[in-house]
Protein backbone atom coordinates (compact mmCIF):
# COMPACT_ATOMS: atom_id res chain seq x y z
CA UNK A 1 0.00 0.00 0.00
CA UNK A 2 1.49 3.39 -0.93
CA UNK A 3 2.18 5.71 2.00
CA UNK A 4 -0.23 8.60 2.40
CA UNK A 5 2.48 10.64 4.10
CA UNK A 6 4.98 12.97 2.42
CA UNK A 7 8.31 11.29 1.56
CA UNK A 8 10.22 13.58 3.91
CA UNK A 9 7.96 12.67 6.85
CA UNK A 10 8.83 10.13 9.53
CA UNK A 11 5.35 8.78 8.79
CA UNK A 12 3.19 6.98 11.31
CA UNK A 13 4.49 7.16 14.87
CA UNK A 14 3.27 5.67 18.13
CA UNK A 15 3.97 7.23 21.53
CA UNK A 16 5.77 5.00 24.04
CA UNK A 17 5.73 5.10 27.83
CA UNK A 18 8.50 4.40 30.34
CA UNK A 19 7.72 3.86 34.02
CA UNK A 20 10.29 4.88 36.60
CA UNK A 21 10.09 3.20 40.00
CA UNK A 22 13.01 4.95 41.65
CA UNK A 23 12.12 8.23 43.37
CA UNK A 24 13.30 11.45 41.73
CA UNK A 25 14.31 14.20 44.14
CA UNK A 26 13.25 17.58 42.83
CA UNK A 27 14.77 21.05 43.28
CA UNK A 28 11.89 21.97 45.58
CA UNK A 29 13.00 19.22 47.98
CA UNK A 30 10.09 16.88 47.32
CA UNK A 31 10.36 13.39 45.86
CA UNK A 32 8.36 12.05 42.94
CA UNK A 33 8.05 8.45 44.08
CA UNK A 34 6.74 6.92 40.94
CA UNK A 35 6.35 8.54 37.54
CA UNK A 36 6.18 7.93 33.84
CA UNK A 37 7.42 9.72 30.76
CA UNK A 38 5.74 9.54 27.37
CA UNK A 39 8.05 9.80 24.37
CA UNK A 40 8.37 9.16 20.67
CA UNK A 41 11.39 8.10 18.65
CA UNK A 42 12.20 8.62 14.99
CA UNK A 43 14.99 6.91 13.05
CA UNK A 44 17.17 4.04 14.23
CA UNK A 45 19.67 3.94 17.07
CA UNK A 46 23.00 2.82 15.58
CA UNK A 47 25.06 -0.04 17.01
CA UNK A 48 27.50 2.34 18.72
CA UNK A 49 24.50 4.22 20.24
CA UNK A 50 26.17 7.42 19.18
CA UNK A 51 23.53 8.97 16.93
CA UNK A 52 20.84 9.89 19.46
CA UNK A 53 19.36 13.40 19.47
CA UNK A 54 17.12 14.65 22.26
CA UNK A 55 14.38 17.15 21.43
CA UNK A 56 13.28 19.37 24.33
CA UNK A 57 9.91 21.02 24.01
CA UNK A 58 8.79 24.53 24.80
CA UNK A 59 5.99 25.79 27.05
CA UNK A 60 3.00 24.21 25.35
CA UNK A 61 4.81 21.46 23.42
CA UNK A 62 4.80 17.73 23.91
CA UNK A 63 6.41 14.50 22.77
CA UNK A 64 4.73 14.53 19.36
CA UNK A 65 7.38 16.48 17.46
CA UNK A 66 7.20 14.80 14.06
CA UNK A 67 5.12 12.47 11.93
CA UNK A 68 1.49 11.49 12.26
CA UNK A 69 -0.47 9.47 14.80
CA UNK A 70 -2.95 8.24 12.22
CA UNK A 71 -3.62 8.47 8.53
CA UNK A 72 -6.45 10.87 9.28
CA UNK A 73 -4.24 13.30 11.20
CA UNK A 74 -4.72 16.76 9.78
CA UNK A 75 -1.40 18.07 11.13
CA UNK A 76 1.98 16.45 11.83
CA UNK A 77 3.98 16.90 15.06
CA UNK A 78 4.95 20.41 16.21
CA UNK A 79 8.48 20.40 14.74
CA UNK A 80 7.87 18.35 11.62
CA UNK A 81 9.48 21.12 9.55
CA UNK A 82 12.84 20.24 11.13
CA UNK A 83 12.66 16.49 11.85
CA UNK A 84 12.46 13.82 9.14
CA UNK A 85 14.40 12.11 6.36
CA UNK A 86 16.66 14.74 4.76
CA UNK A 87 15.46 17.51 7.07
CA UNK A 88 17.58 19.61 9.45
CA UNK A 89 17.49 16.80 11.99
CA UNK A 90 17.87 14.01 9.47
CA UNK A 91 16.23 10.80 10.68
CA UNK A 92 18.25 8.85 8.10
CA UNK A 93 21.28 9.68 10.28
CA UNK A 94 19.94 10.36 13.73
CA UNK A 95 17.86 8.49 16.27
CA UNK A 96 15.58 11.20 17.61
CA UNK A 97 13.97 11.05 21.05
CA UNK A 98 11.21 13.51 21.92
CA UNK A 99 9.41 13.38 25.24
CA UNK A 100 6.64 15.08 27.15
CA UNK A 101 8.18 16.72 30.20
CA UNK A 102 7.33 15.89 33.77
CA UNK A 103 4.37 18.01 34.85
CA UNK A 104 3.03 17.95 31.30
CA UNK A 105 -0.48 17.07 30.26
CA UNK A 106 0.07 14.71 27.35
CA UNK A 107 0.74 11.44 29.12
CA UNK A 108 3.79 12.07 31.30
CA UNK A 109 3.13 12.25 35.02
CA UNK A 110 1.67 15.65 35.79
CA UNK A 111 -1.04 17.51 37.70
CA UNK A 112 -3.81 15.59 35.93
CA UNK A 113 -2.28 12.22 36.95
CA UNK A 114 -3.55 10.29 39.97
CA UNK A 115 -1.57 10.97 43.13
CA UNK A 116 -0.81 7.50 44.55
CA UNK A 117 -0.93 8.95 48.07
CA UNK A 118 -4.54 10.14 47.79
CA UNK A 119 -6.02 8.24 44.86
CA UNK A 120 -7.15 11.58 43.41
CA UNK A 121 -5.61 13.77 40.68
CA UNK A 122 -2.58 15.72 41.93
CA UNK A 123 -4.03 19.01 40.77
CA UNK A 124 -2.32 21.83 42.63
CA UNK A 125 -0.45 19.30 44.80
CA UNK A 126 1.85 18.36 41.95
CA UNK A 127 5.33 19.65 42.84
CA UNK A 128 6.73 22.67 41.03
CA UNK A 129 9.34 21.26 38.65
CA UNK A 130 12.34 23.13 37.27
CA UNK A 131 14.40 22.92 34.09
CA UNK A 132 17.06 21.09 36.14
CA UNK A 133 14.47 18.55 37.31
CA UNK A 134 13.43 17.98 33.71
CA UNK A 135 16.99 17.43 32.62
CA UNK A 136 17.51 14.94 35.46
CA UNK A 137 14.38 13.05 34.42
CA UNK A 138 15.51 13.13 30.79
CA UNK A 139 18.88 11.68 31.85
CA UNK A 140 17.02 8.76 33.40
CA UNK A 141 15.13 8.27 30.16
CA UNK A 142 18.49 8.27 28.34
CA UNK A 143 19.73 5.60 30.77
CA UNK A 144 16.61 3.54 30.15
CA UNK A 145 17.10 3.77 26.38
CA UNK A 146 20.81 2.88 26.67
CA UNK A 147 22.03 6.29 25.51
CA UNK A 148 25.17 7.29 27.36
CA UNK A 149 25.88 10.41 25.34
CA UNK A 150 23.61 12.48 23.11
CA UNK A 151 25.00 13.42 19.71
CA UNK A 152 22.96 16.57 20.29
CA UNK A 153 20.40 18.03 22.64
CA UNK A 154 18.19 20.45 20.73
CA UNK A 155 15.45 22.83 21.73
CA UNK A 156 13.73 26.13 21.02
CA UNK A 157 12.64 28.69 23.62
CA UNK A 158 12.13 26.85 26.94
CA UNK A 159 13.49 23.80 25.08
CA UNK A 160 16.71 25.70 24.41
CA UNK A 161 17.02 26.32 28.14
CA UNK A 162 16.86 22.56 28.72
CA UNK A 163 19.54 22.00 26.08
CA UNK A 164 21.73 24.57 27.83
CA UNK A 165 21.07 22.99 31.23
CA UNK A 166 22.06 19.59 29.81
CA UNK A 167 25.47 20.94 28.83
CA UNK A 168 25.91 22.25 32.39
CA UNK A 169 24.41 19.36 34.40
CA UNK A 170 25.77 16.49 32.30
CA UNK A 171 28.81 17.80 30.41
CA UNK A 172 30.02 14.29 29.56
CA UNK A 173 26.71 13.29 28.07
CA UNK A 174 26.20 16.01 25.43
CA UNK A 175 28.33 16.33 22.30
CA UNK A 176 26.39 19.23 20.78
CA UNK A 177 23.92 21.70 22.23
CA UNK A 178 21.56 23.58 19.92
CA UNK A 179 19.67 26.42 21.63
CA UNK A 180 17.22 28.26 19.38
CA UNK A 181 15.33 31.46 20.28
CA UNK A 182 16.35 30.99 23.87
CA UNK A 183 17.82 32.92 26.81
CA UNK A 184 20.12 32.28 29.79
CA UNK A 185 17.32 33.49 32.10
CA UNK A 186 14.09 35.43 31.86
CA UNK A 187 13.98 39.21 32.04
CA UNK A 188 11.62 41.07 34.38
CA UNK A 189 9.36 41.72 31.38
CA UNK A 190 9.23 37.98 30.57
CA UNK A 191 8.36 37.13 34.18
CA UNK A 192 5.72 39.87 34.14
CA UNK A 193 3.96 38.32 31.14
CA UNK A 194 4.03 34.93 32.86
CA UNK A 195 2.56 36.43 36.00
CA UNK A 196 -0.35 37.93 34.04
CA UNK A 197 -0.96 34.50 32.52
CA UNK A 198 -0.89 32.84 35.95
CA UNK A 199 -3.22 35.41 37.48
CA UNK A 200 -5.68 34.85 34.64
CA UNK A 201 -5.80 31.16 35.59
CA UNK A 202 -5.64 31.57 39.38
CA UNK A 203 -8.46 34.12 39.43
CA UNK A 204 -10.84 32.02 37.33
CA UNK A 205 -13.65 30.91 39.72
CA UNK A 206 -13.52 27.47 38.08
CA UNK A 207 -9.89 27.00 39.09
CA UNK A 208 -10.86 25.84 42.61
CA UNK A 209 -7.35 26.22 43.98
CA UNK A 210 -6.07 23.86 41.32
CA UNK A 211 -8.47 21.02 42.18
CA UNK A 212 -10.92 21.74 39.39
CA UNK A 213 -10.90 18.18 38.12
CA UNK A 214 -12.48 16.95 41.33
CA UNK A 215 -15.24 19.51 40.73
CA UNK A 216 -15.70 18.29 37.18
CA UNK A 217 -14.88 21.68 35.63
CA UNK A 218 -11.93 23.40 33.95
CA UNK A 219 -10.85 27.06 34.28
CA UNK A 220 -11.43 27.60 30.60
CA UNK A 221 -11.64 31.38 30.63
CA UNK A 222 -8.46 31.77 32.65
CA UNK A 223 -6.49 29.39 30.48
CA UNK A 224 -7.83 31.08 27.37
CA UNK A 225 -6.74 34.51 28.62
CA UNK A 226 -3.32 33.16 29.58
CA UNK A 227 -2.85 31.76 26.10
CA UNK A 228 -4.04 34.97 24.46
CA UNK A 229 -1.47 37.03 26.38
CA UNK A 230 1.22 34.49 25.56
CA UNK A 231 0.31 34.42 21.91
CA UNK A 232 0.70 38.19 21.56
CA UNK A 233 4.27 37.89 22.81
CA UNK A 234 5.10 35.09 20.36
CA UNK A 235 4.30 37.24 17.34
CA UNK A 236 6.00 40.41 16.18
CA UNK A 237 4.15 43.67 15.62
CA UNK A 238 4.98 43.33 11.92
CA UNK A 239 3.73 39.76 11.71
CA UNK A 240 0.43 40.74 13.35
CA UNK A 241 0.18 43.78 11.10
CA UNK A 242 0.71 41.69 7.99
CA UNK A 243 -1.64 38.95 9.07
CA UNK A 244 -4.53 41.01 10.42
CA UNK A 245 -3.84 44.72 10.14
CA UNK A 246 -6.96 46.52 11.30
CA UNK A 247 -9.11 44.13 9.30
CA UNK A 248 -12.69 43.70 10.50
CA UNK A 249 -14.85 40.59 10.73
CA UNK A 250 -17.98 42.46 9.63
CA UNK A 251 -18.51 45.49 7.45
CA UNK A 252 -19.15 48.05 10.17
CA UNK A 253 -18.36 48.74 13.78
CA UNK A 254 -20.92 47.61 16.36
CA UNK A 255 -20.22 50.11 19.14
CA UNK A 256 -20.40 47.45 21.83
CA UNK A 257 -18.03 45.29 23.89
CA UNK A 258 -19.16 41.77 23.25
CA UNK A 259 -18.88 41.51 19.46
CA UNK A 260 -15.73 40.12 17.87
CA UNK A 261 -14.92 42.99 15.55
CA UNK A 262 -11.27 42.95 14.57
CA UNK A 263 -9.65 39.99 12.83
CA UNK A 264 -6.93 39.92 15.46
CA UNK A 265 -9.54 39.53 18.22
CA UNK A 266 -11.10 36.64 16.40
CA UNK A 267 -7.71 35.00 15.94
CA UNK A 268 -6.71 35.36 19.58
CA UNK A 269 -10.06 34.05 20.79
CA UNK A 270 -9.79 31.08 18.47
CA UNK A 271 -6.25 30.31 19.67
CA UNK A 272 -7.28 30.69 23.31
CA UNK A 273 -10.40 28.61 22.85
CA UNK A 274 -8.60 25.80 21.08
CA UNK A 275 -5.78 25.78 23.63
CA UNK A 276 -8.05 25.78 26.67
CA UNK A 277 -9.73 22.66 25.35
CA UNK A 278 -6.53 20.64 25.14
CA UNK A 279 -4.15 21.97 27.80
CA UNK A 280 -4.15 21.58 31.56
CA UNK A 281 -4.28 24.80 33.62
CA UNK A 282 -1.99 23.42 36.34
CA UNK A 283 0.56 22.37 33.72
CA UNK A 284 0.48 25.89 32.30
CA UNK A 285 1.22 27.30 35.74
CA UNK A 286 4.10 24.83 36.19
CA UNK A 287 5.64 25.58 32.80
CA UNK A 288 5.63 29.33 33.42
CA UNK A 289 7.29 28.78 36.81
CA UNK A 290 9.98 26.58 35.28
CA UNK A 291 10.67 29.43 32.86
CA UNK A 292 10.79 32.05 35.62
CA UNK A 293 13.07 29.98 37.85
CA UNK A 294 15.58 29.08 35.13
CA UNK A 295 18.84 30.87 35.92
CA UNK A 296 21.79 28.45 35.87
CA UNK A 297 24.25 31.27 36.56
CA UNK A 298 22.58 32.02 39.91
CA UNK A 299 24.60 29.16 41.44
CA UNK A 300 27.79 31.00 40.39
CA UNK A 301 26.96 34.52 41.62
CA UNK A 302 25.33 35.31 38.29
CA UNK A 303 28.53 34.55 36.37
CA UNK A 304 27.41 32.76 33.21
CA UNK A 305 31.00 32.29 32.00
CA UNK A 306 31.90 30.29 35.10
CA UNK A 307 28.61 28.40 34.82
CA UNK A 308 29.51 27.22 31.33
CA UNK A 309 33.18 26.57 32.03
CA UNK A 310 32.71 22.83 32.64
CA UNK A 311 30.56 22.29 29.56
CA UNK A 312 32.15 19.97 27.01
CA UNK A 313 29.65 20.36 24.19
CA UNK A 314 29.96 22.37 21.02
CA UNK A 315 27.19 24.92 20.74
CA UNK A 316 24.96 26.30 18.05
CA UNK A 317 22.86 29.32 19.03
CA UNK A 318 20.20 30.77 16.73
CA UNK A 319 17.98 33.82 17.21
CA UNK A 320 15.45 35.70 15.09
CA UNK A 321 15.51 39.43 14.44
CA UNK A 322 11.90 40.25 15.38
CA UNK A 323 11.71 37.96 18.40
CA UNK A 324 11.05 40.32 21.30
CA UNK A 325 10.08 37.63 23.80
CA UNK A 326 13.58 36.05 23.63
CA UNK A 327 15.37 38.71 21.64
CA UNK A 328 18.70 38.21 19.78
CA UNK A 329 20.39 40.15 22.60
CA UNK A 330 19.47 37.31 24.99
CA UNK A 331 21.03 34.72 22.70
CA UNK A 332 24.10 36.97 22.45
CA UNK A 333 24.49 36.73 26.23
CA UNK A 334 24.81 32.97 25.85
CA UNK A 335 27.22 33.30 22.92
CA UNK A 336 29.44 35.89 24.63
CA UNK A 337 29.67 33.74 27.75
CA UNK A 338 30.56 30.68 25.66
CA UNK A 339 33.30 32.59 23.81
CA UNK A 340 34.68 33.90 27.11
CA UNK A 341 34.63 30.34 28.46
CA UNK A 342 36.55 29.18 25.37
CA UNK A 343 33.80 26.89 24.06
CA UNK A 344 33.13 26.12 20.45
CA UNK A 345 30.09 28.09 19.37
CA UNK A 346 28.45 29.29 16.20
CA UNK A 347 25.75 31.93 16.23
CA UNK A 348 23.16 32.92 13.69
CA UNK A 349 20.79 35.87 13.81
CA UNK A 350 18.15 35.04 11.23
CA UNK A 351 16.18 37.80 9.54
CA UNK A 352 12.57 36.77 10.14
CA UNK A 353 9.30 38.65 10.48
CA UNK A 354 7.49 36.05 12.60
CA UNK A 355 8.75 36.95 16.08
CA UNK A 356 9.38 34.24 18.66
CA UNK A 357 7.29 31.74 16.67
CA UNK A 358 9.91 31.88 13.88
CA UNK A 359 11.74 28.89 15.37
CA UNK A 360 8.80 26.68 14.35
CA UNK A 361 8.57 28.08 10.83
CA UNK A 362 10.49 26.70 7.82
CA UNK A 363 12.56 29.80 7.03
CA UNK A 364 15.06 28.77 4.32
CA UNK A 365 18.18 30.38 5.82
CA UNK A 366 17.40 28.98 9.27
CA UNK A 367 16.74 25.47 7.99
CA UNK A 368 19.84 25.50 5.79
CA UNK A 369 22.18 26.54 8.61
CA UNK A 370 20.48 24.23 11.11
CA UNK A 371 20.84 21.30 8.69
CA UNK A 372 24.48 22.21 7.95
CA UNK A 373 25.27 22.23 11.65
CA UNK A 374 23.52 18.92 12.33
CA UNK A 375 25.11 17.26 9.28
CA UNK A 376 28.62 17.99 10.47
CA UNK A 377 28.02 16.28 13.83
CA UNK A 378 30.15 13.16 13.96
CA UNK A 379 28.32 10.03 14.97
Amino acid at each position, binding site marked *: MPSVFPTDSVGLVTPLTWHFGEPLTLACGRDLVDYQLVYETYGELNAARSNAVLICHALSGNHHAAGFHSEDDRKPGWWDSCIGPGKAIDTNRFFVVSLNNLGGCNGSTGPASINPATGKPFGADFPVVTVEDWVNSQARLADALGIQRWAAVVGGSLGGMQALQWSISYPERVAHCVAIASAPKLSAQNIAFNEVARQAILSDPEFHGGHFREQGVIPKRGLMLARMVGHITYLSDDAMGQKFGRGLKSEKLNYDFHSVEFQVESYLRYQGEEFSGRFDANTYLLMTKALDYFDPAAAHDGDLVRTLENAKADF*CVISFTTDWRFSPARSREIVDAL*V*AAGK*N*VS*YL*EVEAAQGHDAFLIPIPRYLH*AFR*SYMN*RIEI
Partner: protein
Amino acid sequence: MRADLDIIQEWIPAGSRVLDLGCGDGELLAWLRDNKQVSGYGLEIDPDNIARCIERGINVIEQDLDKGLGNFASDSFDVVLMTQALQAVDRPDEVLREMLRIGRQCIITFPNFGHWRCRWHLIRHGRMPVSEFLPYTWYNTPNIHFCTFKDFEALCREQHLRVLDRLAVDHQHRDSLSSRLWPNLLGEIGIYRVSRPDAT
Protein backbone atom coordinates in the same frame (compact mmCIF):
# COMPACT_ATOMS: atom_id res chain seq x y z
CA MET B 1 44.52 28.87 -0.04
CA ARG B 2 44.18 32.54 -1.01
CA ALA B 3 47.66 34.00 -1.38
CA ASP B 4 47.26 36.70 1.29
CA LEU B 5 45.99 34.11 3.77
CA ASP B 6 49.05 32.01 3.10
CA ILE B 7 51.25 34.96 4.06
CA ILE B 8 49.19 35.69 7.17
CA GLN B 9 49.23 32.16 8.50
CA GLU B 10 52.99 32.35 8.87
CA TRP B 11 52.55 35.18 11.37
CA ILE B 12 50.13 33.22 13.54
CA PRO B 13 51.81 31.05 16.20
CA ALA B 14 50.67 27.43 16.45
CA GLY B 15 48.12 26.78 19.18
CA SER B 16 47.07 30.41 19.50
CA ARG B 17 43.59 31.80 20.02
CA VAL B 18 42.43 33.83 17.05
CA LEU B 19 39.55 36.19 16.31
CA ASP B 20 38.98 36.78 12.60
CA LEU B 21 36.93 39.92 11.84
CA GLY B 22 35.08 39.39 8.58
CA CYS B 23 36.16 35.77 8.25
CA GLY B 24 34.44 35.21 4.90
CA ASP B 25 33.86 31.54 4.18
CA GLY B 26 36.20 30.52 6.99
CA GLU B 27 39.03 29.30 4.77
CA LEU B 28 41.84 30.68 6.93
CA LEU B 29 40.37 29.57 10.26
CA ALA B 30 39.75 26.07 8.92
CA TRP B 31 43.33 25.87 7.65
CA LEU B 32 44.75 27.17 10.94
CA ARG B 33 42.64 24.67 12.89
CA ASP B 34 43.75 21.75 10.73
CA ASN B 35 47.42 22.68 10.43
CA LYS B 36 48.37 24.80 13.43
CA GLN B 37 45.98 23.70 16.20
CA VAL B 38 44.60 27.22 16.33
CA SER B 39 41.28 27.70 18.09
CA GLY B 40 39.30 30.63 16.93
CA TYR B 41 36.12 32.41 16.06
CA GLY B 42 35.15 34.26 12.93
CA LEU B 43 32.79 37.22 12.79
CA GLU B 44 30.75 37.53 9.62
CA ILE B 45 27.49 39.05 8.41
CA ASP B 46 27.03 37.52 4.98
CA PRO B 47 24.51 34.63 5.24
CA ASP B 48 26.17 32.52 2.53
CA ASN B 49 29.59 32.90 4.11
CA ILE B 50 28.15 32.03 7.53
CA ALA B 51 26.54 28.90 6.12
CA ARG B 52 29.85 27.89 4.52
CA CYS B 53 31.66 28.38 7.85
CA ILE B 54 29.13 26.16 9.60
CA GLU B 55 29.61 23.49 6.94
CA ARG B 56 33.36 23.65 7.50
CA GLY B 57 32.78 23.24 11.21
CA ILE B 58 34.45 26.44 12.29
CA ASN B 59 33.09 28.76 14.94
CA VAL B 60 31.29 31.63 13.24
CA ILE B 61 29.41 34.38 14.99
CA GLU B 62 27.00 36.64 13.17
CA GLN B 63 28.13 40.09 14.22
CA ASP B 64 28.40 43.44 12.48
CA LEU B 65 31.81 45.05 13.07
CA ASP B 66 30.22 48.49 12.80
CA LYS B 67 28.15 47.81 15.90
CA GLY B 68 31.25 47.47 18.01
CA LEU B 69 33.27 44.70 19.60
CA GLY B 70 32.50 45.57 23.22
CA ASN B 71 31.24 42.04 23.88
CA PHE B 72 34.81 40.67 23.67
CA ALA B 73 36.93 40.90 26.79
CA SER B 74 40.26 42.72 26.81
CA ASP B 75 43.31 40.53 26.16
CA SER B 76 41.10 37.55 25.38
CA PHE B 77 42.81 36.60 22.09
CA ASP B 78 46.40 36.11 20.98
CA VAL B 79 45.76 37.43 17.50
CA VAL B 80 42.91 39.49 16.06
CA LEU B 81 42.93 39.68 12.31
CA MET B 82 41.02 41.50 9.66
CA THR B 83 41.62 40.91 5.97
CA GLN B 84 40.39 43.34 3.34
CA ALA B 85 37.75 44.88 5.58
CA LEU B 86 39.43 47.94 7.15
CA GLN B 87 38.37 50.12 4.24
CA ALA B 88 34.75 48.93 4.53
CA VAL B 89 34.02 49.70 8.19
CA ASP B 90 32.42 52.90 9.51
CA ARG B 91 35.32 53.85 11.77
CA PRO B 92 38.61 52.12 10.94
CA ASP B 93 40.36 53.98 13.79
CA GLU B 94 37.92 52.65 16.40
CA VAL B 95 38.02 49.13 15.01
CA LEU B 96 41.82 49.20 15.14
CA ARG B 97 41.78 50.43 18.74
CA GLU B 98 39.30 47.69 19.68
CA MET B 99 41.32 45.01 17.90
CA LEU B 100 44.34 45.84 20.02
CA ARG B 101 42.29 45.95 23.20
CA ILE B 102 41.00 42.41 22.53
CA GLY B 103 44.16 40.88 21.12
CA ARG B 104 47.84 41.08 21.89
CA GLN B 105 48.60 41.36 18.20
CA CYS B 106 46.67 42.32 15.10
CA ILE B 107 47.08 41.41 11.51
CA ILE B 108 45.44 43.72 9.00
CA THR B 109 45.37 43.68 5.24
CA PHE B 110 43.97 46.44 3.04
CA PRO B 111 44.30 47.80 -0.51
CA ASN B 112 46.75 50.67 -0.97
CA PHE B 113 45.11 53.71 -2.52
CA GLY B 114 48.54 55.24 -3.02
CA HIS B 115 49.48 52.64 -5.61
CA TRP B 116 50.72 54.20 -8.84
CA ARG B 117 47.79 52.84 -10.85
CA CYS B 118 45.31 54.65 -8.58
CA ARG B 119 47.38 57.83 -8.76
CA TRP B 120 47.65 57.58 -12.54
CA HIS B 121 43.94 56.91 -12.97
CA LEU B 122 43.10 59.98 -10.93
CA ILE B 123 45.61 62.20 -12.76
CA ARG B 124 44.76 60.98 -16.23
CA HIS B 125 40.97 60.66 -15.97
CA GLY B 126 40.23 62.92 -13.06
CA ARG B 127 37.88 60.26 -11.77
CA MET B 128 37.90 57.74 -8.94
CA PRO B 129 39.91 54.66 -9.89
CA VAL B 130 38.03 51.55 -10.98
CA SER B 131 40.03 48.43 -11.63
CA GLU B 132 39.63 44.72 -12.00
CA PHE B 133 40.77 44.37 -8.41
CA LEU B 134 38.49 47.12 -7.04
CA PRO B 135 35.60 47.02 -9.51
CA TYR B 136 33.15 49.38 -7.76
CA THR B 137 32.23 52.95 -8.61
CA TRP B 138 32.36 55.60 -5.89
CA TYR B 139 28.62 55.60 -5.19
CA ASN B 140 28.10 51.86 -4.74
CA THR B 141 31.39 50.77 -3.27
CA PRO B 142 31.42 49.04 0.11
CA ASN B 143 34.95 50.44 0.47
CA ILE B 144 34.20 53.76 2.09
CA HIS B 145 37.53 54.49 3.80
CA PHE B 146 40.39 54.08 1.37
CA CYS B 147 43.83 54.93 2.62
CA THR B 148 47.45 54.65 1.58
CA PHE B 149 50.19 52.82 3.44
CA LYS B 150 51.46 56.17 4.68
CA ASP B 151 47.99 57.05 5.97
CA PHE B 152 47.71 53.77 7.82
CA GLU B 153 51.12 54.10 9.38
CA ALA B 154 50.26 57.65 10.46
CA LEU B 155 47.17 56.25 12.21
CA CYS B 156 49.34 53.63 13.91
CA ARG B 157 51.63 56.40 15.17
CA GLU B 158 48.66 58.41 16.42
CA GLN B 159 47.41 55.40 18.35
CA HIS B 160 50.96 54.64 19.56
CA LEU B 161 50.94 51.23 17.91
CA ARG B 162 54.03 49.30 16.96
CA VAL B 163 54.29 47.98 13.43
CA LEU B 164 56.00 44.61 13.88
CA ASP B 165 55.92 43.48 10.26
CA ARG B 166 54.72 44.87 7.01
CA LEU B 167 54.59 43.49 3.56
CA ALA B 168 53.55 45.27 0.38
CA VAL B 169 52.43 42.92 -2.37
CA ASP B 170 50.72 43.08 -5.73
CA HIS B 171 47.11 42.00 -6.20
CA GLN B 172 48.22 38.41 -6.66
CA HIS B 173 50.01 38.78 -3.34
CA ARG B 174 53.45 38.53 -4.86
CA ASP B 175 56.23 40.22 -3.05
CA SER B 176 58.83 41.96 -5.24
CA LEU B 177 61.99 43.98 -4.82
CA SER B 178 60.34 47.10 -6.25
CA SER B 179 57.37 46.93 -3.87
CA ARG B 180 59.83 46.61 -1.01
CA LEU B 181 61.74 49.67 -2.12
CA TRP B 182 58.72 51.86 -2.88
CA PRO B 183 55.81 50.20 -1.10
CA ASN B 184 53.46 53.17 -1.11
CA LEU B 185 53.85 53.55 -4.85
CA LEU B 186 54.24 49.98 -6.01
CA GLY B 187 52.49 47.86 -3.39
CA GLU B 188 48.84 47.09 -4.09
CA ILE B 189 47.96 45.35 -0.85
CA GLY B 190 49.41 45.96 2.58
CA ILE B 191 49.74 43.22 5.13
CA TYR B 192 50.56 44.61 8.57
CA ARG B 193 51.24 43.05 11.93
CA VAL B 194 50.89 45.53 14.77
CA SER B 195 50.90 45.42 18.55
CA ARG B 196 50.45 47.76 21.48
CA PRO B 197 53.56 49.75 22.39
CA ASP B 198 54.02 47.81 25.64
CA ALA B 199 53.81 44.40 23.96
CA THR B 200 56.89 42.29 23.59
